[in-house]
């Protein structure tokens, strides 16, 4: 399972970012593009182990910044912050409930862009962030909240397809073997 997440999470991050950069209709239709990475980091923080979480954060953040006009490394700190906080508290988050997954995803979807904007202003950049950004933030937050359960479904299917469950040995057969010896 550990290696499975270590391989699949960065691959899904790459594909998600590709889809995000190619599919333009959300921006044309609702004025905002939904960020896929915060939701994936939430999933990784709730389900995967720490190395897999770090892999998806580092690779995902660098790939995302490579496709964007943002400075390289901008999304590293916000994604690390949100990923670490959720990973530390994952015992107290009811991660198997739809509502909990949605809420954590929605919070991450709002916090990550806000932290990124804060960094951009600190770096002296002038991003297009007026009052309309409140609407974009709401769209990103809801979109991210909805993406977390989708990622859970996707990874459940992938795990079912690629990981064989370990079957516990039959106790009667074990006893029979012991008596024969």
């Amino acid at each position, binding site marked *: 399972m550990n290696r499975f997440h270590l391989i699949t999470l960065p691959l899904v991050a*790459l*594909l998600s*970012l*590709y889809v*995000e*950069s*190619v599919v*333009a209709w959300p*921006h*044309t239709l609702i*004025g*905002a*593009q939904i*960020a896929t990475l915060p939701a994936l980091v939430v999933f990784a923080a709730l389900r995967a182990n*720490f190395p897999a979480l*770090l892999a998806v*954060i*580092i690779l995902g953040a*660098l*790939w*995302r*910044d*490579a*496709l*964007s*006009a*943002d*400075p*390289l*490394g*901008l999304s*590293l*700190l916000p994604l*690390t912050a949100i990923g*670490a906080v959720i*990973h*530390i508290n994952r015992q107290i988050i009811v991660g198997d409930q739809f509502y909990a997954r949605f809420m954590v995803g929605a919070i991450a979807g709002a916090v990550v*862009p806000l932290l*990124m*904007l804060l*960094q*951009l202003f600190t*770096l002296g*950049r*002038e*991003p*297009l*962030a*007026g*009052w*309309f*950004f409140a*609407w*974009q933030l709401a769209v*990103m937050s809801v979109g991210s909240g909805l993406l977390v359960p989708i990622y859970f479904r996707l990874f459940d299917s992938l795990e079912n397809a690629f990981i064989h469950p370990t079957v516990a040995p039959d106790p009667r057969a074990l006893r029979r073997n012991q008596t024969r010896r």
Partner: protein
Amino acid sequence: MFRRQHYIALGLIALLALVLLNLPQAATTRLKLALGGFFLPLFGLSSASQTVGQKAVDTGVPRAILLQQLGELQRTNQQLRLQTTQLQEAARENTRLRQQLLWQQRAPWKLRLARVTSRDPANWWRTFQIDLGSRNGITNDAPVIVVEGLVGRVQQVGYTHSQVALVGDPACRIAVLVQETREQGIVVPGAATASNPMMADLVYLPANSAVKAGQNLVTSGLGGVFPKGIPVGVVSEFQPSDGDLHTTARVRFAVNTGRLEEVWVITP
């Protein structure tokens, strides 16, 4: 539970972020282009599937429609050829007059067709990537246009791909000329740009400007990035100033950059 190694790993990530954010521009560009290389197989796959899809659609078009389109294209072609003949004469006259006045000759544009491969995932920038790079002769600041008008300028050049800052992006300020009044100003992102990418502000107009809504804007050629005469948009709103040194007008761009699939890049 979090162990000591976990905290060390988080510290290392923070350090990595700080190093990356403080790298020189040239190194950042090279790193970005290297990382963007991971997406090249996906872009290639998407391009190939689009071509296959287009071919499949083309084979299904009825002959009658194709003949009708052919007739229309032939008529348009004849009209354009007549216009070209007329313009060639005007161009010859222009060259002759320029020679007599000892003015510098205007170099004809060298255009390269590029396909839009991806758009900026961030909501606060207006950029996209095209499938031409330094191997195709693309350079930094090369103007990007379509038939309707200006699209933007090349912001970063990679070997196979380039990033284009679109009109309305903070990195793409355009020196313009109001065609009717010959007044000059600069088009910059305005308050409305974030909600409507087609809108921007025309700033530094003279206080007594005679600009009116509906007048056309073209590039002025000042600044050296965009050649003179490329359509930029129209003035959509203008409020005369009360006592200020400069006035501002609202501008609607000629090109809807959100729907573009192919663009032309002016190469040196």
